């Protein structure tokens, strides 16, 4: 098992291949359909620092955050999958979710030395491995707001890297 700590370095990402099981420790962000297009807009306008968001080496976990906990939603929803390329260009190194993504997205990830990782929907386990949680942007979206989590050893499997997909 490969142990990764955020922020993720270019070198750490370049060594990952499809099928690697990794653990993730450190701060990660959450975002899904409603918030990701807004985050992209902030990044394009150069306003991320207004919210204290740093996407360099970041992980975006495709989840809502509710009293019930966290768990991956399908990453192939249009608003989510279309965020992979622009967010990778702004420094995101790992998109964390579930479900098969398109060949085009797999290619775009490789071009930006970023990866897609699949995380099982193990809410109770993830809850036990999450030690901090705070809303950082768009609180009006409720459980779909962008949150920053501090996590310890979340397990995930690399689903797309270097132009290859685990679903091929």
């Amino acid at each position, binding site marked *: 098992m490969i142990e990764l700590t955020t922020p993720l370095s270019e070198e750490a990402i370049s060594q990952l291949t499809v*099928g690697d*099981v990794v653990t993730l420790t450190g701060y990660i962000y959450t975002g899904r359909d409603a918030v990701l297009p807004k985050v992209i807009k902030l990044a394009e306008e150069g306003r991320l620092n207004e919210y204290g968001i740093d996407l360099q080496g970041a992980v975006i976990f495709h*989840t*809502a955050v*509710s*009293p*019930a*906990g*966290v*768990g991956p939603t*399908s990453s192939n929803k249009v608003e989510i999958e279309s965020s992979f390329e622009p967010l990778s260009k702004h420094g995101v190194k790992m998109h964390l979710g*579930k*479900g*098969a993504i398109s060949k085009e997205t797999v290619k775009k990830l490789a071009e930006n030395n970023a990866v897609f990782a*699949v995380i*099982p*929907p*193990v*809410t*109770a*386990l993830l*809850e*036990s491995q999450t030690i901090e949680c705070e809303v950082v942007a768009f609180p009006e979206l*409720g*459980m779909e707001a962008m949150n920053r989590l501090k996590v310890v050893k979340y*397990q995930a*499997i690399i689903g797309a890297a270097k132009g290859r997909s*685990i*679903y091929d």
Partner: protein
Amino acid sequence: MISIQEKVADCLVRAGSTFREDQKDAYRKAIALENSEKSCWVMRQILDNALVAEERRSPLCDDTGIPHLFLEVGKNRSVTGELLEQIKEGVALGLRQLPGRPMAIKGDDYARIDQSGGLNEDSGALAPSPILIKPVDEDVLRLTVLMLGGGPAIRGITQRVFHKHSVNVVIDEIVDRAKEGVSKLGCSPCVLAVGIGRSQFEATSLMMEAMVYGDFSKQTDFEMRITEKVNEANIGPLGLGGKHSVLATFAKIGPQRASGVRIVALRPCCCFEPRRASVEL
């Protein structure tokens, strides 16, 4: 004395946070038989998750599901309006204790369809489905709570099958529909819940009953044939490939119409389902 409301609340929390022993055993057996390391890793994560959820009495999945209620009533037992109200109150209490994901949609008919009215922040505001009542020979008043998630609801299908006087035709159609549903669900390995009846309502009711009574360790020939055929598709846990796309099939075959059609309800239950627990009231 424990109130009806407290019994129902505890039952709902168990449904949303606990794997039954036959369910745990099914995972242990699948892990032992699976050749794919990726698939084994996924199933171990799911089993570890269940153990943590049970210990903490916390949700198995962040989609905590919509409460569906199944009430078995013995010949000498009665169901009153007061009892139904107490059950409803118990559901709200249980949703707050679990806690359930707050997902009650606010507003009038249009606002509830397009979700423009927003969400109620109270987990307990989520209305349960209508209660399904079944007369039984046992001297019992037993409530089963099922927590049904959104993914399987998206991929489930209730539709006719023209049987052509062949069980194989019906099985093949179920298998074809199941393969498509399981591959798109993502959260596999699945349990396939199947009801076969004379109308959409009856087939769906039978499917519910299959989820209430289904046991991983007791599979009929009909159920095993479906499971084995779907597993040939090599979809695997989380779609990562492997022999275990489906851990079991829970089927209930009811009375049938004197015609060439069978109505089949199929729900590809996710890797935590059927999330269910029962309590005697």
